[in-house]
């Protein structure tokens, strides 16, 4: 039951996320601010804070929240704690189209950044993400729509997109290789205000849908049959959830490249803190995902200043040991 201890934990997580937000805002390559000086900055400080750091930190918040959210939904849809949006082919599709955009820019002189508030390359990448996902969903549906077929379709599309990417990588010159590598490692470098708006819109929309459906998400955990017995419109709800995942995760991965582990780890940490019912799991995951994202990005911006460490490296460092710990714990549990 959603009694006092659980609500308290959520407030605690909110405080943690807020603290991470302030930390991220205060710390950076240009200079570190003390908390009071964050308010009413002048001149150069103001430029740094408002033009560069604030959009970046807002973006980190929404990206982390959004990725965690898609992780929760995926783990519910696949009823598997190891599920994450990557399974649906969105990341592979986004990567392939990002690579195509990199090639087009260098070799054909087609630059996307000229229009669309700089979101051009991201939108092209997003087309790749949705394309890959639609194929996966269609393949999955035509074989019965059961979870394992969707999974297999995802694996197949990932393989195809990876191979196609591989061909481009083979043809790539030094610069293109670096760009592709950096895309794979992820970064919040594209955090302009339009990008923030896009990230915010998709994340908030996904959150609203998920929160409204939270009971049905719980029911889906018990299996499609039981969920139906309980009164869930299984086909429609699953379809809606898949669409929400692809739009949110596809948009985010197009803007950031591959950010490892947040989608996988945040829901797990949240589950350990507040349990599996989505009423608590959703806000907890969102807050934890945002906090991880903000912290990792702060390290990314600060540790190698004036250069930036790609974000995926840091989320990997933070996430991998936890992931191993989870696997070991899971193994022990199933042996017990």
């Amino acid at each position, binding site marked *: 039951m959603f009694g006092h201890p659980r609500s308290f934990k959520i407030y605690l997580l909110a405080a943690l996320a807020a603290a991470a937000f302030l930390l991220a805002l205060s710390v950076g390559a240009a200079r570190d601010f003390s908390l009071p000086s964050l308010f009413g900055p002048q001149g150069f400080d103001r430029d740094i804070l408002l*033009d560069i750091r604030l959009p*970046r930190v807002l973006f980190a918040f929404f990206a982390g929240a959004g990725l965690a959210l898609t992780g929760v939904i995926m783990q519910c849809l696949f009823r598997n704690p190891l599920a994450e949006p990557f399974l649906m082919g969105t990341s592979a599709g986004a990567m392939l189209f990002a690579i195509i955009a990199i090639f087009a820019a260098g070799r054909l002189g087609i630059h996307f*950044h000229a229009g669309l508030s*700089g979101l051009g390359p991201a939108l092209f990448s997003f087309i790749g993400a949705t394309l890959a996902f639609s194929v996966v969903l269609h393949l999955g549906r035509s074989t019965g729509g059961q979870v394992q077929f969707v999974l297999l379709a995802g694996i197949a599309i990932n393989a195809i997109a990876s191979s196609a990417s591989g061909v481009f990588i083979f043809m790539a010159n030094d610069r293109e290789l*670096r760009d592709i590598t950096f895309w794979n490692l992820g*970064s919040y*470098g594209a955090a302009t205000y339009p990008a923030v708006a896009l990230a915010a819109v998709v994340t908030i929309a996904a959150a609203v849908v998920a929160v409204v459906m939270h009971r049905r998400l719980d029911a889906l955990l018990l299996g499609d049959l039981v969920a139906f017995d309980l009164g869930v419109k299984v086909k429609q709800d699953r379809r809606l959830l898949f669409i929400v995942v692809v739009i949110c995760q596809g948009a985010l991965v197009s803007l950031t490249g591959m950010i490892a582990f947040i989608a996988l780890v945040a829901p797990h940490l949240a589950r350990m803190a507040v349990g599996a019912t989505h009423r608590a799991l959703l806000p907890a995951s969102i807050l934890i995902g945002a906090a991880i994202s903000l912290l990792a990005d702060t390290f990314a911006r600060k540790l190698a*200043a004036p*250069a930036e460490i790609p974000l995926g490296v840091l989320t990997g460092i933070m996430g991998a040991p936890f992931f191993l710990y989870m696997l070991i714990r899971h193994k022990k549990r199933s042996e017990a």
Partner: protein
Amino acid sequence: MKKAVLCLLLTGAAFATEKKRIVSVGAIASELVCEIGACGDIVATDVTSVYPPELLKKPKVGYVTRLSAEGILALRPTHMVVIDGAGPATVLDQLKQSGVKIVKVPVGIGLGDAAKRLEILGEFAGNAPAAKKLSQKMRADVAQLSHQKKSKRPPKVLFIYARGAQTLLAMGANTTAHELIELAGAANAFDAEGAKPVNAEAIAASQADIVLIPEGSLAGLGGAEALQKIPGFAQTPAGKKRRLVTLEDSLLAGMGPRTAAAARTLRNKIAEAMQK
């Protein structure tokens, strides 16, 4: 040669009185900024700017296409000299909005881009006329070389670049190395586009008369003896007659004022090697 560039441009340096803080992005951009004598004004470079060696000590702002706005602004630059394609574009926009003057430099290996580079940097240094003169001289020098008659059977030169012990790259058409070889009156033994990894068979198939290798790569491989041991090499005339010519690493970044002179040196070295 370098002194000539310096002198020509510094005569105009009196006009460029503002104290500049320069962030240079891109190997060729950094090299050229140093060539006009502004090396001391560089506060940071990107990771690909490794020549001249003093740049290695400067702070790094990341890779050419992955710059960090805040990191760069932290250095309070007045100017940025960047190569085409530096980015992300949003970061450059942010920097421009913050008042940093950004000068873009083309990266092509051809003569046209080389001349453009000189002119742009001349303007940057505050001495456009001198730069224009220099670039015209460069064009003339190179033109003179290209018009020289090529022998009926020019020696086949294979250019090898070693990236680490494992990967050997050969330079085909559309590379600086190719242009240099042609200007030196020889022929490129490697029939391909751009830089490509080569294996033993490809090396043997090239039947190169001479192997051309940058000094740094040769050192990295372990010297001339190590080069002899590379599979495929022994099957070429160059390997059999031990015809090895080296070149200064920095000449590979692109055409520049030193290119014509380098081509002449190369021509002589090739002729010498062919005596073997």
